[in-house]
């Protein structure tokens, strides 16, 4: 497992390889908590929001919504308490970047939360971490107490009027809680069901109060934006996709890992074939899912020789999405029917059951996949899968439905040979599905 920056100076990964990188001492000796000091000494909350706007930072959790804009939606005149919630429910298959940020550099997240808290007028902030990452919650708790003892968390931070609490909170194994409104339901102590938008969390979120939910990687980018200035951060990347981005790489590559690249890195083929050491055992590349399992799967010929630029626009142009930046690389031995079946089972398991298209649709799809895998494939099944996806996509209550449909739609269309192989059997078994 590698953790390194390629094509740029490490920014978010600057401290991860230092000895005792978790400690307050090492963090401070390497530029830590300078940004919150600068904010408290010289900047108004609006200055902070403007700086984040200038940075072109976009939400790193998957949706890619401009962070500065999200922050500006919080009504300043609201008499209600305001909340900042960090989404550390990293559960998107193929994604494991936040884990290493928290494991190696927890104070960077705390500083990001404090700056967000200052900008949004929040005195109470939570880090919602998936339950399986219990060891990270323990690491964060130690770091928070260390920061509290140094006057960096709690009342009158650094001797100013600004007070802000940072608390950890645990999830308990539900992928849906990565969706921001489901996360808030869960944080309030309910089932993780998504809520109707609007009202958006910025207006009515946690305890019906204005709330901003940001991903770990988004919040940990904020201290550097403040220190170097929004413009300088944006220039590390492209005009529309500012800064650097962490990519988690897994599957059939020689050097899986977490890589920090400038936004707009050129190009995806070079990244997989050189930076990640190429395909295991000298095999051929077959497919890549570049943004966590919820995005369109790409064929090798959409990547090789195509100069795919690695940023929000570049990946859309190439036929997929940045998503959470989780690369799952598959070699020629992978049967895309099988890999799609695996992801369909994932979405079926993780569907929260709240809305019918997603609950019933993902269940039906897994039954069709199972029947086909058991030898009962019929020629019309590819179309049946697409029809089922069509009844989920855009018709479910939250984006989980789309996320379940997209991998199947793209796999059926881009790897018809892998599906045909199973569907020509025209079997009898399991005809009820």
């Amino acid at each position, binding site marked *: *497992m590698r953790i390194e920056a390629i094509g740029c100076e490490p920014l978010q990964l600057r401290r991860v390889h230092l000895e005792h990188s978790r400690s307050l001492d090492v963090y401070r000796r390497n530029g830590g908590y300078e940004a919150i000091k600068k904010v408290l000494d010289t900047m108004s909350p609006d200055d902070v929001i403007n700086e984040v706007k200038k940075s072109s930072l976009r939400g790193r959790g998957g949706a890619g919504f401009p962070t500065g804009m999200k922050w500006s939606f919080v009504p300043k005149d609201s008499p209600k*308490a305001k909340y900042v919630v960090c989404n550390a429910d*990293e*559960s*998107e*298959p*193929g*994604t*494991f970047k*936040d*884990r290493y940020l928290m494991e190696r550099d927890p104070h960077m997240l705390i500083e990001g939360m404090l700056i967000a808290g200052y900008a949004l007028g929040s005195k*109470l902030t*939570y880090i919602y971490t*998936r*339950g*399986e*990452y*219990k*060891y990270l919650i323990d690491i964060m708790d130690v770091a928070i107490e260390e920061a509290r003892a140094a006057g960096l968390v709690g009342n009158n931070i650094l001797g100013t009027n600004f007070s802000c609490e940072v*608390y950890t*909170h*645990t*999830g*308990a*194994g*539900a*992928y849906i809680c990565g969706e921001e409104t489901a996360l808030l339901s*869960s*944080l*309030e*102590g*309910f*089932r*993780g069901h998504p809520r109707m938008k609007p009202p958006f969390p910025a207006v009515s979120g946690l*305890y019906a109060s204005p709330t901003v939910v940001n991903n770990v990687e988004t919040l940990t980018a904020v201290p550097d934006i403040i220190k170097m200035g929004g413009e300088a951060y944006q220039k590390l990347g492209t005009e529309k996709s500012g800064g650097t981005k962490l990519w*988690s*790489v*897994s*599957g*059939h590559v020689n050097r*899986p*890992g*977490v890589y920090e690249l400038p936004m707009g890195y050129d190009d995806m083929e070079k990244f997989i074939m050189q930076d990640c050491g190429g395909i295991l055992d000298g095999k051929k590349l077959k497919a890549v*899912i570049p943004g966590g*399992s919820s995005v369109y799967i790409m064929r090798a010929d959409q990547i090789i020789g195509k100069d795919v630029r690695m940023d929000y626009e570049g990946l859309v142009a190439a036929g997929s999405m940045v998503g959470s930046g*989780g690369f*799952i690389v*598959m070699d020629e031995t*992978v049967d895309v029917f099988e*890999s799609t079946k*695996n*992801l369909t089972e*994932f979405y079926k*398991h*993780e569907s*929260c059951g709240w809305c019918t298209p997603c609950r019933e649709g993902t269940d039906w799809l897994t039954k069709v996949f199972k029947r086909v895998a058991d030898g009962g494939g019929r020629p019309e099944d590819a179309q049946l899968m697409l029809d089922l996806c069509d009844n989920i996509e855009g018709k479910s209550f939250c984006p989980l439905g789309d996320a379940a449909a997209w991998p199947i739609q793209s796999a059926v269309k881009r790897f018809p040979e892998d599906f045909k192989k199973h569907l020509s059997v025209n079997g009898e078994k399991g005809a009820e599905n």
Partner: protein
Amino acid sequence: MSTEPVQIRPLSQPVDIGSEVATFSPEVEAEIDRHLAKYPVQRSAILPLMFIVQRERGYLDAPGMLYLANRLSLRITDIWEVATFYSMINTKPVGKYHIQVCKTLSCKIRGAGKITSHCSEKLGIKVGETTKDGRFTLSEVECLGSCGTAPMFQINFAYHEDLTPEKVDQILAALP
């Protein structure tokens, strides 16, 4: 079409959950208080508290649920509703060591199946079962965020990564 009348059974049957309420040591009570103090609304602490009850009692049993209902001023159905939504909350007993093999794509294509079948053979149980001595439960779970070090499993809360069958043997042998 059949003309037989359709028999509709009641959706849920009455269950006797008893009246025993779990009790905890002063240290655990203090830990619970610390969690409750984090939130302006007590119900928010439901998941952290469920993990504590589970740790202390092995799983979230009926006395544990009654305790939580009392402590959080909620109905027992509120507790049950939440407990049954989250896959990490066990409402049935699990082994002392809960082996949770990640089965999602990145692990699958790097050999998760072999790890599961190796555990299964070694322990003599199928996925979803517990050994007779109550020592091991074997489960397959969805993505644990350890894709770059696949295949992997979690035993209780501990991550074990880059697994091979030999490594699995060593890990299981080293458990107290």
